[in-house]
């Protein structure tokens, strides 16, 4: 458990360091006995996706991704509960990129294609996959 905590903290530092690329981040002396996940590993993608989600999606979908964000009260139907989503990864990627209107869903779901990078969109989908029901279609 303790090792897991150390590892999570180290991964956070590594990813944040990569994001900020500051001299201070580069100077952090990381423990040598920690197995860092590769940046393309599922763990790293889910972690990065959770950060993107926290920055851009929580307003409507909520911190718990249950559709109860602070702006949810503005919309009928309410934002999707992403913990119970029955949509495929491909569908999620499309609606994130294009927004709700072209997908015949809520016009209030913005198109994120111009704001997020390809990697960020892919990471968010990985994060959503990690919180979706196990029997949800892929």
């Amino acid at each position: 458990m303790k090792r897991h905590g150390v590892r999570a903290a180290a991964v956070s530092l590594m990813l944040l360091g990569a994001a900020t690329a500051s001299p201070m981040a580069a100077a952090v002396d990381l423990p040598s006995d920690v197995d860092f996940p590769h940046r393309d590993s599922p763990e790293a993608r889910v972690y990065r996706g959770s950060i993107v989600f926290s920055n851009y999606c929580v307003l409507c979908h909520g911190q718990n991704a249950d559709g109860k964000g602070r702006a949810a009260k503005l919309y009928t139907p309410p934002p999707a509960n992403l913990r119970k989503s029955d949509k495929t990864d491909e569908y999620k990627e499309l609606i994130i990129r294009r927004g709700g209107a072209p997908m015949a869903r809520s016009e209030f779901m913005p198109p994120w294609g111009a704001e997020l990078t390809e990697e960020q969109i892919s990471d968010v989908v990985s994060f959503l996959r990690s919180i979706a029901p196990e029997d949800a279609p892929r």
Partner: protein
Amino acid sequence: MLNKYLAFPLAFCALVSSALAANHVVEQKGKAFSVKSLNVKVGDSVEFVNADPFNHNVFSLSDIKTFDLGSYPQGQSKKVVFDKAGQAEVECAIHPDMILKVEVSE
């Protein structure tokens, strides 16, 4: 009969009121509102013009006005009328750092 006599003055007042209301234009450029705060009168409208080459959104969850004008591309604008006095915080759902404070007075 009374309604008939009231209809004209009421319509006249509404017409005068809307004629006196101002429209304030705020640009969305460089992922920022062109002003950080704005003072308007009750009945005034604020028009948000997207001058960025990507979509913006405008919404507010303030007590005096809750709205979401949706997302729209460069060159388009959306307008909202503030019909109650108080303070409103206007945001962009796509760019969380964009915040505009609107002070609405009688």
